[in-house]
């Protein structure tokens, strides 16, 4: 179980880190006055500082209101639900990079329907493949927008 206090602290630290990254990145390009006005790093530098300062403000507010923030941010049941949604989604992205979006889409829909929807494998697989075909027809044929493809499309000669 995660409480709201830790979640606030973690997020504020993260945003401060992003702000700091912008500040450090900007220093490389000069933050002063160049031949053509302010140098390219100037604007990101001050924006980064602003983010760091506001994150510090958030940290300060979180710590001073610590007692009001002991509520549950994420309980065990919710965490399981979020994980069961996020993990297949991450797998979908990984597979999409390797095998292309169509194959990944078909596998992903099949998996979720079978495991989380408790549908029969044949129904799930048919829906998955059907969805991939519909996406192909709408995007590649209808709008002529090419999607990321993999070895299967190459084998079928769909380029």
């Amino acid at each position, binding site marked *: 179980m995660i409480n709201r206090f830790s979640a606030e602290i973690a997020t504020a630290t993260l945003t401060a880190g992003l702000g700091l990254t912008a500040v450090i990145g900007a220093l490389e390009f000069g933050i002063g006055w160049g031949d053509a006005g302010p140098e390219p790093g100037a604007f*990101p530098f001050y924006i980064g500082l602003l983010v760091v300062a506001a994150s510090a403000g*958030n940290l300060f507010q979180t710590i001073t209101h610590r007692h009001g923030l002991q509520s549950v941010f994420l309980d065990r049941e919710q965490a399981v639900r979020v994980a069961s949604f996020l993990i297949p989604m991450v797998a979908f992205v990984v597979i999409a990079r390797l095998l292309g979006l169509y194959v990944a889409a078909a596998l992903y829909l099949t998996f979720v329907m079978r495991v989380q929807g408790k549908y029969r494998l044949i129904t799930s697989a048919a829906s998955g493949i059907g969805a991939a075909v519909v996406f192909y027809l709408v*995007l590649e044929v209808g709008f002529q927008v090419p999607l990321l493809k993999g070895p299967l499309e190459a084998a079928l000669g769909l380029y």
Partner: protein
Amino acid sequence: MENFASLLHGFGVALTTYHVTLMMIGVLLGILVGVLPGLGAPNGVSLLLPLTFTMDPVAAIILLTSMYWGALFGGSTTSILFNIPGEPSSVATTFDGYPMARQGQAAQALTLAFLSAGFGALMGVILITILSSWVAKFALRFSSPEYFAVYFLAFASFVGLGAASPFKTIVSMGLGFAFAAVGMDTVSGGLRLTFGFNELLSGISFLIAVIGLFGIGELVLTMEEGLHFDGIKVRVRARDVVKTIATLPRYWMTLLRSSAIGCWMGITPGGPTAASFMSYGLAKRLSRRKDAFGHGEPEGVVAPETADHAAGSSAILPMLALGVPGSATAAVMMGGLMIWGLNPGPMLFIERPDFVWGLIASMYLGNIVAVLMVLATIPLFASILRIPFAIIGPIIVIVCFIGAYTVAGRPFDLWLALLFGVAGYLFKKLDYPIAPLVLAMVLGDKAEDAFRQSMIMSKGSLSIFWSNGLVATLMVIGLALAFGPALSTLASRLARPKTSSVAA
């Protein structure tokens, strides 16, 4: 009168079979994204945008704005039938809409919602017709410092008027500006903030951010809450519709008041969500039937719906005339305009009058088309929500990632969308506002250019932002908006030191 002639010309542009067909497709797609959880107006428009890159700008903007109207209507539908707001701006509609539906008045509630929404939108469009060319003419006097002041004003009002903690608003906004700065620097043409990653050379697209933050983030949140849709079955019969139309004039005061609130909040970046809540609150306070609110009072449906749509449509005005969008969806559309090679702002009225007035005319037509179509198709769309989430959820995920890929055809964007999705989930749970981030990503380069050009004009002195009456006024209003609420809290705390008020 000049505007009226331009508008008639605009109708000539908008009223072709092709454009009306596009309106119908747009509205249908819009209702679909409005009804589906996790998809809303901003990311519906983001998903569709890459498909319009090859279209003519007039046709493309008609498709996108129609989708926007449809999404607003779809959001109200789920509020009334399922007690699930499809859009943040239709939360207030659930207060009385859902009780009405439970009492067997679903058809009346829907009809009232759609008609008052249509009325509100119409008021917004009329406002645009009257004011836009005037605002644009005024804005022709702006140069870089004034533009920077207008952007400052827009972001200051987020900080001061937003419901979230001002620090969280600033973090969200600052991150937006930082993301916008990644990649090519528009002034010097050099690369920056890429940290050696080739993938970051062409920058981070705001469309990816919107798809991740609004789409995937929202889906994760929906999953976490566990899904159970207890929808109310509805049949919209023509007789009920006609009967309900007859009761509409009874609410004329609410309609006018809510439109006024909506238009104001739409032009200033208060946005549709704030407008609908404010309008609901006022209607309740001023009503003679206060106690009926929350238990199925028709006026409680009319007020937020009118304001929501009035704000939604009038948010287009500052986008067109000044280049400062009034809502997240308007920001996405403005990004679209820039991708099509159009430069939103006063020059657009001079360079592309056919585009501007065609768009405005299409907003009249689009809303009428939307009201008719939504009334005709709503039972169909309501049944979509009865499809189990194990099927519809992954399909929405796939659509989001396909949308992210089509933006630029870069596989790296899939990872970015995923990261933004997780960030969106965290931000939503911790009450960080997302709209300022999107606005900052769209306006980032323009705001930076305005700032740098002002600095060049003044040789590095910040005093240029106080150099004439116009820019000084804008800056003072901006500062007042940003710091006013904080100062008044501080003052009241100093006056009564014992009460520990929490600055939310």
